[in-house]
């Protein structure tokens, strides 16, 4: 895909004074805004690349194709489109949550492009598989999440979505948009949730050739400790660090610890 199209489609932002690219991929539920406490810490040493997946943030919603994005492969293609469109090499990929697996899929398809995979709260499978695998969720739990999304988008992003889609025609709404974070088209968000929480990437782990860091939070309801341990055992070349931070978004709730931990890993590499 030609560079200008990728930049526009995925709302790509590039800054920083370094040469080695550090590509930040947001997780489900938000957009590149999620990196706002983290990315600036690396701009002296790296070339920072931020983007929104198609369907999220200020990406081109018109480029959304339900078929393409019916599996994480479609999202991995977004990552590869950005990497190839900007001709990035030796990439340090930083992915949050579901983007960890998206990064793995992308790195398995083009390993020569990636130097490191840094995964914040990764999980290859969110749903428990009796008797051996603990993902943390039952199917009914995810149904509960989807219901909550439907209810929230019913009155919330439902109003934002048309604004985003029509901002080209109505520039006066652009200013209003600047203030809306993590706005996602409700239909797309729902499909992303389904794809994220029902996918199973355990079989993709063994093929990974790029060294990786698993950043496991203490008490993370979305990616529990067992999942981190499972990844550490199955993912070749992986290192695990357990953050004191609790929750699933340490880069938002505890940016300093997250930054220090990434620096330490990159410094040791």
């Amino acid at each position, binding site marked *: 895909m030609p560079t200008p199209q990728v930049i526009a489609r995925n709302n790509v932002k590039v800054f920083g004074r370094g040469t080695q690219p550090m590509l930040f991929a947001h997780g489900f539920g938000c957009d590149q805004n999620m990196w706002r406490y983290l990315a600036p810490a690396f701009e002296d040493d790296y070339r920072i690349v931020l983007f929104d997946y198609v369907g999220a943030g200020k990406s081109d919603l018109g480029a959304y194709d339900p078929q393409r994005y019916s599996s994480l492969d479609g999202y991995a293609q977004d990552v590869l489109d950005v990497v190839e469109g900007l001709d990035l090499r030796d990439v340090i990929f930083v992915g949050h949550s579901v983007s960890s697996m998206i990064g793995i899929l992308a790195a398995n398809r083009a390993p020569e492009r990636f130097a490191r995979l840094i995964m914040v709260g990764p999980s290859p499978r969110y749903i428990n598989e009796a008797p051996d695998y603990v993902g943390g*969720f039952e199917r009914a*739990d995810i149904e509960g999440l989807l219901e909550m999304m439907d209810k929230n988008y019913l009155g919330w992003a439902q109003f934002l979505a048309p604004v985003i889609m029509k901002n080209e025609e109505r520039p006066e709404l652009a200013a209003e948009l600047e203030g809306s974070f993590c706005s996602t088209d409700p239909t797309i968000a729902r499909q992303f949730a389904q794809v994220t*929480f029902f996918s199973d990437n355990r079989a993709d782990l063994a093929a990974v050739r790029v060294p990786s860091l698993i950043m496991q939070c203490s008490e993370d309801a979305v990616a529990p400790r067992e999942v981190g341990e499972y990844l550490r055992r199955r993912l070749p070349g992986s290192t695990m660090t357990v953050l004191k931070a609790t929750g699933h978004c340490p880069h938002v709730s505890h940016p300093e610890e997250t930054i220090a931990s990434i620096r330490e890993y990159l410094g040791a590499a």
Partner: protein
Amino acid sequence: MDSLLNTAPCGFLAFADDGTVRAVNATLLELLGYGRFELEGWHIQAILSPGGRVFYQTHFYPLLKLNGRVDEIYLSLRTKSGEDVPMLANGIRRERGGETLNDCVFMRVTQRSRYEDEILNAKRVAEQANQAKAKFLSMMSHDLRTPLQAISGYADVLALGISGEVSQMQLEHLSRIKSASAHLLRLINDILDFAQIDTGRVEIRIQNLLLPTVLTRAEALVALRFEEAGLSYTRECDPDLAILADSDRLQQILLNLLTNAIKFTESGGVTVSCDHDGERAFIHVKDTGRGIPEDHLQRIFDPFVQVDAETVAPAQRGVGLGLAISHDLARAMDGDLTVASKVGEGTVFTVALPLA
């Protein structure tokens, strides 16, 4: 906590950034079945349903932290006995006692949640029905087209006399079969087109076009009909006007507008004129027909709507999709189709398309 907040008719909870609950009011404790001070020091996840935990981590907390506040978030909490309670939450971040706290209020929305379930369910059913309808229309049109092409094809074969001599009367009958099947085919194509546009499967190839070239092509196809109807046709158009459009789709729109104009004009004629505003070119198709009443104008681009269907001969009648298709096609080419009309004076349809 002051007693007003403690007993206010809504739940209140403050938590730190690491999720630790710092304060809960009596109303929320009672609603969730916990005793006094029981929740303080716990992690907020303890009172969230499993789906609620994910939503909290992926939406609620990031939004609260990034935006400083959240409003009207639907979140389901879990009681001590394991029941899920639908809640509406507002939250705001505030500095207090040397740390940043996330203050949240919760309103129980059990009743409202049930209504919303019904609305969502109805929405889903409607979407499914709409998809099924479009799929049905598309399949049906395909299935009807194949035998129809056989009918028309064999009528041609018979008329050629390949399978035996054909009398003059038989030729006339064959010609009626031909024209009836051509009419039927047009209707079916309209339905198929509409179904494809409706499901977003129509392909548009935008090219740089000279508008007069497209007009000349369309005119050639309707010239005979103008003659038969005894109507005049005039074109006033800059020969160098270039636009960005799909040539076949634009032709389809123009043919639709021109045949409509012929159908609804008894005397006088049709004028096609062009102009532009620097960004868009406009093609005006103006007739001297009887005009369209105000209340019909608003629905004229809706599918399956026919104005004055009873005044048109059955053989010329469509299914009321022509204008709906033209309107959708114009929009698909980043353009538009609009109408202005005065009863007794005539109607002007205007196609707007980006200038090249």
